[in-house]
């Protein structure tokens, strides 16, 4: 049908603000941002029919029987890009990926999330998320294999006067805000050069779009300042990795479905079942939440070193009330803030594909609600400090310890193909198997250092 109001708004804004290029963004299955630029004149057609492209050139889109695809911009995501402020300007929109007959493509991660949200909506729920994004600022441009160097030696909450990091966060936040992405907190994280920026609560699709934008903005701002922003989960052996702890809740209309006054931790039955679902399915969704070989070095890298010291990466499948060593934490309840009842899922890292990760998390939680899973007892101790025998007694399982284990758990899953769709599920598995095989072939520095002189 004809253009709707939002599409018209976009067309008018292009005119008024003298915008000559519109970047149409979409995301491949691995979470890399893809972009195609169109001139304003083509946009009307793009709204009506989408822009054709060769899907086989995009990771995970390549159905061999389906090379031609369409990218159809979502006008509600229209934003002028602030780092190209000079006129003529540049704007962006996220796209939905369609088949040539106009039906949604099952290969589109955004559609995967939309379907998951649709399923939640069928049950009467809206899914809200609030991510805490960590990343490193490094000196110069990264080069293959060279040891990266953090921009500073600051630590947790350090206020480093006139530092790169300080300027960086200020500029970055201004840019985020100018693109309509609200920032809750920002501070220096525990490791040298490590930053944390928390985004405001929003529905999961918006959050996922925001994370895609966020990663790009951080890289752009860093470049302007001659530094490099990296979302690699674990760039340094000796420092903690970068995670994306995500707070989440379900709403039924205006009501927080996780909140029940008087219940233990004010946590409703729905909330408890959601956690139970996440716990039961945590191993099989790990490959999606922590999709790189390197992700597992964050999940497991700190265990020995920081046992008892409160490292931030959770490695064991359990939950706890305000327990930072648990995979799922139920934060301290604040009176008069019933709508703020939420849970925090802590294994996720920033290098995930946020659309797929949110879909997987939501799907696992909904499964718990649908099937009425019972929530096991919460963990009260620091799980890292327990002996493995103690953990066994308490029934606390480890998360997969490597990408290989995660792949195997994913292969056994019936839930994940349901959530991701068969196409994405299949592509993802094949791609990750290939990554694992490629990694396994590598002879590392570690081996050379340890072995070459003695063997």
């Amino acid at each position, binding site marked *: 049908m004809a253009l709707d*109001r939002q599409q018209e708004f976009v067309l*008018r804004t292009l005119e008024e603000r003298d915008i000559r290029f519109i970047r149409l963004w979409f995301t491949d299955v691995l979470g890399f941002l893809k972009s195609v630029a169109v001139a304003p004149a083509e946009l009307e057609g793009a709204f*009506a029919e989408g822009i054709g492209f060769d899907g086989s050139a995009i990771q995970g889109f390549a159905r*061999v029987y389906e090379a031609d695809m369409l990218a159809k911009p979502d006008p509600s995501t229209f934003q002028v890009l602030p780092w190209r402020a000079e006129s003529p300007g540049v704007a962006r929109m996220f796209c939905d990926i369609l088949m040539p*007959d106009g039906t949604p493509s*099952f290969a589109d991660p955004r559609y995967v999330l939309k379907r998951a949200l649709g399923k939640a909506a069928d049950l009467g729920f809206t899914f809200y998320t609030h991510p805490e994004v960590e990343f490193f600022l490094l000196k110069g441009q990264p080069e293959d294999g060279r040891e990266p160097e953090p921009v500073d030696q600051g630590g947790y909450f350090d206020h480093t006067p006139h530092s790169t990091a300080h300027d960086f966060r200020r500029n970055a936040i201004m840019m985020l805000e100018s693109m309509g992405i609200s920032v809750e907190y920002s501070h220096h994280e525990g490791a040298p050069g490590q930053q944390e920026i928390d985004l405001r609560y929003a529905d999961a699709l918006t959050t996922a779009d925001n994370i895609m934008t966020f990663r790009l903005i951080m890289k752009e701002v860093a470049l302007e300042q001659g530094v490099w922003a990296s979302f690699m989960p674990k760039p340094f052996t000796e420092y903690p990795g970068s995670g994306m702890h995500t707070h989440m809740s379900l709403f039924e209309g205006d009501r927080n479905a996780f909140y029940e006054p008087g219940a233990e931790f004010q946590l409703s039955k729905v909330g408890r079942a959601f956690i139970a679902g996440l716990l039961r399915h945590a191993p099989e969704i790990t490959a999606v939440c922590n999709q790189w070989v390197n992700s597992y070095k964050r999940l497991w890298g700190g265990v020995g070193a920081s046992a008892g010291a409160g490292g931030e990466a959770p490695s064991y499948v359990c939950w706890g009330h305000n327990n930072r060593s648990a995979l799922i934490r139920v934060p301290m309840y604040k009176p008069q803030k019933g709508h703020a009842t939420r849970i925090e899922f802590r294994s996720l890292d920033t290098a995930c594909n946020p659309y797929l990760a949110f879909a997987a998390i939501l799907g696992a939680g909904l499964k718990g609600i649908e099937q009425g899973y019972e929530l096991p007892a919460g963990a009260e101790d620091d799980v890292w400090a327990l002996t493995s025998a103690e953990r066994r007694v308490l029934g606390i399982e480890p998360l997969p310890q490597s990408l290989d284990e995660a792949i195997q758990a994913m*292969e056994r899953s019936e839930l994940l193909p349901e959530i991701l*769709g*068969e196409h994405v599920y*299949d592509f993802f598995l094949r791609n990750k198997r290939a990554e694992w095989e490629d990694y396994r072939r590598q002879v590392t520095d570690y081996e050379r250092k340890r072995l070459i002189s003695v063997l």
Partner: protein
Amino acid sequence: MSEPWSADRRPSLIGRLARLGFTDATRAQRLLADSEADVGDTLIDALGGTADPDLALSGLLMLLERSQEPTELLNALDDDLDVQERLLTVLGVSTALAEHLARHPDHWRVLAGPEALHRPTGRSLRESLLTSVGADPADVAPVAGLTGMDGQVALRVAYRRRLLHLAGRDLTGVAALGEVAAELADLAAAALEAGLAIARAETPEATGCKLAIIGMGKCGGRELNYVSDVDVIFVAEDGLDDAALRAAAKLAAGVMRVCSASTPEGSLWEVDAALRPEGRSGPLVRTLASHRAYYERWAKTWEFQALLKARPVAGDPELGQAYLDAVMPMVWKAAAGESFVEDVQAMRRRVEANVAPAEAERQLKLAPGGLRDVEFSVQLLQLVHGRADDGIRSSNTLEALAELSQGGYVGRDDAAALASAYRFLRRVEHLLQLYRLRRTHLVPDDEEGLRRLGRALGLRTDPIGEFTALWRRHARGVRRIHEKLFYRPLLLAVARLPGEETRLTPEAARARLTALGFNDPAGALRHIEALSSGMSRRAAIQRTLLPVMLGWFADAPDPDAGLLGFRQVSDTLGSTPWYLRLLRDEVTVAERMARLLASSRYLTDLLLRAPEAVTMLGSNAELAPRSYDLLSAEALAAVQRRADDDRRPHESAEEAVGAVRALRRRELLRVGVSDLLGLADVRTVGEALTDIATVTIEAALQTAINKIETERRGPLPTRFAVVAMGRFGGHELGYGSDADVMFVHDPLPGTDERDAQLAAHAVAEELRRLLALPAPDPALMIDPNLRPEGRQGPLVRTLASYAAYYQRWSASWESQALLRADPLIGDPVLAVRFREMIDPIRWPEDGIDETTVRDIRRLKARMEAERLPRGVDPRVHIKLGPGGLSDVEWVAQLLQLQHAHAVPGLRTTRTLAALDAAVQAGLLTVADATALGDAWQLATRLRGAIMLVRGRPSDLLPTDHHRDRTAVTRVLGYSATGAMLEDWRRCARRARAVTERVFYGSVS
């Protein structure tokens, strides 16, 4: 309570009331007794004649009680029967107006005197409402003397008074529906004007600021209801500065508030300004220039469509006219836009999908056959043809319908029927809304409400029953007509009948066909012309049928092919009397034929070769596959007839096979149609196609034997049989499958074995020759390559030779192939012996050893790597890809080789039966068998659907993204291609997992 009879034996008051139609006579009697007014017998009789006597009585008594001079009213009612009729009729329909009268008893006077019959002009309505709020109608920009609540109340009282006047004429039949709807629009315009006067008085800063109010929707089209939202757009004069524009916006907001605010006198209606540029997010008021700029640059087809109904209704008339002059010329230019065809199709889908709202069956507006259907149909036709013809652009539904009819865009009878239904539905809507002056489109479900409605419409004997029947009839009529509305005029466009009616021009017809999804509108028009022109009975019947069939074609994957096919069938069968009868009387036949022709190339070809087969489309019983016995008897009889005649053996043999192949064509059509229509499941289709192939080969064999015997001048010296192998042996043939066979013979005792071999070979060769003769039907390919030694081996072997071969040489794959061997055709004694010979090989005692299992696994693993065509993604190969047919079949076959000796149920050639038996025997879990069975059945259905749609077989999921894949998707009943692909991937993944575990023995 018993009432005494009075002296003159008149029935008691209560009995009389009951007979007059009061539903609660006791209450009525009490009310009358309690009332101070003296309501006489005549008046009581008259009350009984109203739609709802109880309602009318309460209203009347309340009015009399509140009235200062009840006697004057009673006298007027007695003296003037017209007043009596008008007042009582209104009171019998509307409690809201009764309440108004109770508050303003004096207002009954608008129903009296000659004025009561008079239709007010828009100007007089405007004057009367302006005066009511103390404004001077003569002013260019009248300002009210009353403001705030006083103004709002005064406006409502005056408005209701005019409404009462209108209801009096409406309900007594003085004003026709069109007049009522137009006057309601005028009244709304007057109220807006008065509202504007109040707003001016309340907004001094807007003094001198020119504002025009443009009516949209039903208000603009002068076809308003008693109560509905009034759609408007506000226009300010050019050259206002920001402050003045803000003042104008305040003024506009004031108008909206004055009309919609609730007061002790109720509210008028909501004023809805959402049709303005940018909708609710745009500024409430724009200048003329800003409107013009917006429509020039931004507005889209549907917005122009909304503008069609635009009409200045209040405020500055010159400004309003200037707005219209500026905007209207753009409206139809826009209809030529690129997205026009899509817009039309989207609208058409909206009309036809007609998502049923809640309480659908009681909905006047949105239910199928409701008001929305009529309005949409009319607008759609205006949209398709209005840009080329400025004579059909009226904003009023009834007028537009009349124009469309005059222009030949809609058939005259259709237009008349549609208009009459529209009037009926609108009258019902008005009555419903009058009751409480509420915005409603729901027909009541209580007896009282329905009764009042029926009686108000003049249905007195059985108000509820008659009303319901009438309503359903109209709704059905609308439904049927709007289906044909688009198609019928296409026939007139090409008709050669002397022009009694104006008709669609060829250009308009082509535009409409394109909008309906035909790719070659010129060709389509030619077919329509050929099918419908002429004076023959055939043309007459086809003229009736085509409008409906065109709709079915338009809904199917390939409308052009459908229409072409229909023309071809008609050309062949045209004047056959039974064909015409069939088409005329059997809707099912026509609908199924349309569906078949527009979705399946395979079936279209079959049907065109033997069009008389359309008869079978009429009933599901006819479409059920014929039993093997029936077919076999028919085929062998055909062969026998020709063997008995005394022509040359060569000719009669070919003719016999020709007859059998015709039978095969007919049966393939029968099975294919059942399949396409979802009447037969996968197993049934496989069995039926196998039966057809069996009968065909059997008849060809008999013919071949007859011929060879004639040539040899003696009976065949050997028993001969054909062994079905592969999918054929498994009774799982598809439409395009080759028939895998082996030929076996067994020389009769005392005959020369060499001679027998020669004769048997001759029979086999003749059989192949006969079936390979060029013919128009889909070929039945005989593939004998599964025989021992493949192509190198002899075509025919004796039973003994087979036995010797299998004993000495047989490899594991040959035992496996024998699992599917079923000697279906030929000598029954030989068939039994053949089975006895192979049973120990295919179902070996104690199963198979580890080495053999490993060989079979390795063979399959190699095949997975090598047998796939080069460059094909294995995952789209539904036969050889992971989880495909081959996976499932090999799982079943491995279990059979291992366990059939112990489990009798496994001794079957059928894949699904073997899986069932494996579950029974505990060799396979139910879940695993389901995964395998689901994948196998879906793959089989996909292959079938691909063949039906394309007419060519393929083992690949359809890869092109145009017609074929969409068509396959629709034939299989999926909502979208993505859903079909997902379903296949899911089934295949699960089946593959079972294969990995059960067949390859891998542990995960």
